């Protein structure tokens, strides 16, 4: 152990920040604050961030724990390729998203939290971490079993040459053996 994976923490933070933005936006719209456009933006930004951050990435070492039902999100996020794989992109994206939120009271908290998440993503990117999708385990990953193991052997097992197998007259001790059952000649 020893290497801390910052991206995992940043992911939790960004997801929570997305929810905070969403909640703040809903309160802003429902509470009939002025500047309702910013509140609507906050809702949209919150939903977007949640969708982006819902699928967890794969850990470098050890088992990765998926979030419930994240497979379809994983597929969507994976399809953007390097845009979603690279954490520098995510860091700047979150920084950009959180700025307009700072203009209304209701979204200030979400904005600050997303800003913190963006900083942690930056730290993760500097340490070279990347987002890898968690995909279901494929059967072909197992070592392929050779075909020859399924057929019965065609040849007898290898044996030493006939001279070595024959019992030697010089070495009676080694040649002799004791019958476990008494052997008698057939008298009938």
């Amino acid at each position, binding site marked *: 152990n020893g290497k*801390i*994976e910052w991206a*995992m*923490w940043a992911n*939790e*933070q960004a997801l*929570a*920040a997305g929810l*905070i933005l969403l*909640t*703040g936006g809903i*309160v*802003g719209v429902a*509470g*009939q*604050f002025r500047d309702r456009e910013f509140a609507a933006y906050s809702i949209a930004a919150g939903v977007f961030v949640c969708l982006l951050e819902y699928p*967890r990435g794969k*850990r470098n070492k*050890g088992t990765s*724990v998926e979030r419930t039902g994240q497979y379809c999100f994983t597929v969507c996020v994976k399809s953007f390729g390097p845009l979603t794989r690279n954490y520098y992109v995510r860091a700047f994206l979150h920084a950009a998203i959180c700025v307009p939120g700072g203009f209304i*009271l*209701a979204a*200030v*908290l979400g904005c*600050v*939290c997303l800003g*913190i998440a963006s900083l942690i993503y930056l730290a993760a990117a500097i340490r070279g971490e990347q987002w890898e999708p968690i995909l279901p385990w494929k059967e072909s990953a197992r070592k392929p079993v050779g075909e020859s193991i399924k057929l019965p052997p065609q040849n007898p097992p290898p044996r030493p040459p006939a001279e070595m197998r024959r019992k030697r007259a010089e070495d009676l001790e080694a040649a002799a053996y004791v019958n476990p059952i008494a052997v008698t000649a057939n008298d009938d």
Partner: protein
Amino acid sequence: MALSVRSWVANEGGKHLVLVLWLGANTLLFMRTFLLYYCGQQYHYLHQMLGLGLCISRASASVLNLNCSLVLLPMCRSLLTYLRGTHTVRSRKARRLLDKSKTFHMACGVAICVFSVVHVSAHLVNMVNFSVRYSEEFPSLNVARYRGEVRFPGITGILLVLILFLMFTASSYCIRVSNYEIFWYTHNLFIVFYIILIVHVVGGALKYQTNFEAHPPGCLRANQTNPDKTEEESGQAEGDGRSCREEARFQPNSPETWLWVSGPLCLYCAERLYRYIRSNSPVTIVAVVRHPCDVIELRMLKKDFKAHPGQYIVLNCPSVSSFENHPFTLTACPTEKKETLGIHLRVVGDWTVFNYEVSLCVAGGIGVTPFACVLHALLDGWRHFRLRRLYFVWVCRELQSFYWFAELLCALHHKLWKENRPDYLNLQLFVSQTDGLQNISEERYRPLSSRLMIGRPRWKLLFEEIGRTNKHKRVGVFCCGPKGISRTLHRLCNSDRYSGTTFEFNKESFS
């Protein structure tokens, strides 16, 4: 599988009772505070100005006070260990409840987060109302300086939410398992959280009316008309028809958070101080033994150290990290004959295997370590315990793992045979990886090889057998292993097919 009411109550009853009490306390507090601000005479004018936002924000604040004070208590581990050991906690039931303390801590934590969201949202609405419904009639009630001004909300509230955000996002199961340090360091921000929490209410934005007898809310001043209200509306208010003797006077609410929070906070700080002082006396490592499958056994000596089987110690190794402390189960407790304590590496709590007449201990892999201490204790002397029969099931992936405690198991088996109690210990070993011919070939480990089975255990059959041979008894089930096994066992304990035998489930968690 049918659910048996009696088994369910025995296993789950206490836990659910505490849950119901806690929910009840929260609901009661919320409703009481809500109604106070909704109907209370001293808050009449404030309520008029702020509406529902006032009631919801204050009600959620009181629930937050309760949970912020409760959340610290389950973490006073030394205190809980002391309580478990004393005779004040006589029954088994109370001890099992204390084992659930971490779950309670998490429940309070989640409640704090949820109600913080409610509280902040309600205060946002309050901010707007303070600005839009600026009151010329009662200028001292206002927080805004003029109509339409939106004051920037208290900095303490923002800081609290940020700290809570950091703590909460770092405490998910995923992060605790992979990067424990992040969880530990952010969670220790709690002290900053509490300090800011105590000063949070000192601002005094919300005021109550001090003289509502002399000035019943809604009454009309003799030579002043309220341009915003008609005759009927003001007639509806509380003091209709009565004249005011004086102007309404307001005073800020006195902060009460410190009342709730300071007790548990001091208790917890005392607990941490106690742990720190105890940890300062040094420990000598007497022996290091290497076992197969990457397991190391450490034998150590520490002055005045006493422990019971099943307890764990927390180790700090300054050359690795001066701040980190990690828990390890004791596999050998110090006794009169042998003063050293031993660990094999991994975690968990103080169990009560000996308090049942019949116990079933299930270990998965390295999860056998807490039970090793139990076996050592039996080896020292088994007669004085209430325990009469122990079923010990150990499931491992590889055969080599059984060698960790092969000596101990065989020694206990031989001792019980010599002392004429062959049925005291029922040992079953399972190797779950089924490839290859596997056997324990050493002659001195014969008791183990004859009890070795290939494949996974059939739990239902085991439970039925235990039920048949121990009718009408209460069997303690102790599990330390992977979640799958513990879930299966928990489910089996709650079902009802066991001819009058009750199985009580006790589980330990790794982290």
